[in-house]
């Protein structure tokens, strides 16, 4: 192969902002619609001639489309470079990889911080309450706009994993393989409870201004930081927190005051403070709400298996992590049992890790290898390998 052919076959990272014409609105579960929808996305690798090698990655609550490239605000590397990259299970040398910012987000896709074209002002709380199905519908519009009829795979962790389930429920014929990592088919009371703490922290910040802070030129940074601190605890296991920090102090002794005496306090404060630089408070409200509303079985007569009735031919892979107490293994088992009940082709493995929910983003070789094995075998079945 000559150099010219190589560079033609290997498109560099791409993406941008896709603006849908007003006559192609995003129809919402609440009955409304968003006209002039914009979806910000990144791509890696090149679409093959058969258009059969596309993988859509769905991101988690506070993540974004920068799955394998440096974040434009923080400058930090992509959030899933352990899994996405040359020689990794999701490989731009083999796959055309798409990751888009969810509708309701704050990294370029239409969300509460965007300008409402009808008023010329930021949406704020006039933005419609959206659902994960709305997010997935927007992704499906983008995928279609990119000329892809059927994705080779839809892959996601946490909220991304829930979107994967929504994808196969809503578009079973447009997905060849589905990978759902550290997720659940519905939000539990505990999940909703933690989200409510975060939302209340934001709304208690005087700078939130009833959601209208953008117009008034302020930001509810304190509230959003507290929301992030509370949520961050749920992403880590007790064991990992203990291993990292124990009761270690920041300084030489106790301050006998309310400074960050303990290292764990300092760590959480840093997590909160750095989060507000890259995230919008109203987006946090809307996306957590969408997650809380998620209950895949409810939309199918309370029988989860019925959500997968038409997805028997999809090759499923479900992962959980032993120390994940936010989306514990029992939730993944529910998904797998529903898949088995309809005779779907489902694989499931619980990865032994003490890193908690965030394990799916961290260095977990068994997870990475199993994912690689699954996608490799699926690629063969799809005629890609």
């Amino acid at each position, binding site marked *: 192969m000559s150099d010219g052919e190589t560079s033609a076959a290997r498109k560099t990272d791409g993406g941008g902002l896709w603006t849908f014409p007003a006559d192609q609105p995003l129809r919402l579960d609440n009955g409304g619609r968003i006209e002039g929808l914009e979806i910000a996305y990144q791509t890696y690798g090149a679409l093959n001639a058969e258009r059969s090698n596309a993988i859509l990655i769905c991101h988690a609550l506070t993540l974004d489309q920068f799955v394998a490239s440096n974040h434009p605000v923080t400058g930090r590397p992509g959030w899933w470079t352990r899994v996405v990259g040359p020689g990794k299970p999701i490989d731009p040398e083999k796959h055309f990889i798409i990751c888009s910012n969810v509708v309701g987000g704050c990294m370029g896709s239409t969300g509460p911080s965007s300008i409402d074209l009808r008023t010329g002002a930021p949406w704020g709380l006039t933005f419609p309450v959206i659902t994960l199905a709305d997010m997935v519908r927007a992704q499906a519009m983008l995928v279609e706009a990119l000329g892809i009829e059927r994705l080779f795979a839809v892959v996601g962790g946490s909220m991304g994993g829930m979107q994967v389930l929504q994808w196969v429920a809503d578009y079973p014929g447009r997905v060849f393989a589905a990978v759902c990592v550290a997720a659940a088919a519905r939000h539990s009371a505990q999940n909703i409870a933690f989200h409510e703490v975060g939302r209340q922290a934001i709304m208690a910040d005087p700078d939130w201004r009833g959601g209208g802070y953008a117009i008034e030129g302020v930001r509810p940074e304190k509230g959003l930081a507290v929301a992030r601190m509370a949520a961050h605890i749920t992403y880590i296991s007790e064991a990992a927190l203990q291993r990292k920090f124990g009761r270690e102090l920041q300084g030489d002794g106790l301050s006998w005051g309310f400074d960050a005496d303990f290292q764990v306090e300092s760590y959480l404060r840093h997590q909160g403070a750095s989060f507000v630089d890259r995230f919008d408070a109203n987006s946090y409200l809307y996306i957590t709400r969408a997650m809380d509303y998620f209950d895949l079985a409810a939309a199918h007569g309370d029988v989860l298996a019925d959500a997968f009735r038409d997805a028997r031919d999809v*090759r499923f*892979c*479900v992962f959980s992590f032993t120390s994940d107490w936010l989306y514990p293994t029992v939730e993944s*088992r529910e998904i*797998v*049992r529903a898949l*088995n*009940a*309809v*005779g779907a*082709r*489902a*694989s*499931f*493995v*619980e*990865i*032994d890790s003490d890193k908690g929910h965030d394990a799916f983003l961290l260095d977990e070789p*068994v997870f990475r*290898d*199993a994912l*690689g*094995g*699954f996608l*490799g*075998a*699926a690629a*063969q*079945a799809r005629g890609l390998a």
Partner: protein
Amino acid sequence: MSAPAVRPDFAEILRLVRPGSRVLDVGCGEGALLELLARENGVDGRGIEISPEGVSACMARGLAVMQGDADRDLDYFAAQAFDYVILSQTLQAVQNPRHVLGELMRIGERAIVSLPNFGHWRVRLDLLLHGRMPVTGVLPDPWWATPNIHLCTVHDFTALCDDLALSIDACAALADGKPARPIDPTRAAENWRAEAALFLLSRR
């Protein structure tokens, strides 16, 4: 390069399973049997395996395998979802063998079950002469380390099949490294001779 020798019990299962059928292998390990069945008989195979390492190895082979165990996870499969459900050398290690056997026959049209025979002459002799729990080729662990909590003889098993109204469509004696030998499991002599036995079961 010559093909590696197929384990005698696998060869017997390969002989019994109709090509192109749907198969669930309960306790599939690293997927060697499922892969063999897919390659040789073109079966649509699924597996259940308790160890994450085993499941990962299966996934790397392209097999559809879920982490789980026979006691808890069979209940969630639809009735008659499979043509064959295979439980190889595992029934004696489950919590509730009667329930598991019933579940195998609910979700599969047929079941293929193999188990060590506690009625084998060496087992009987060991216990008679030494008064100690037998340790043999098919029962290699001491009593305090064995996963086998519900050992039975060939005749115990045929009695349970009777009780559950199951018919034994085929039976073979298994011995380490030797080809499977078709037997009549109701004969007293076979309850002495067979080290392990493999049964093909269906509902009456």
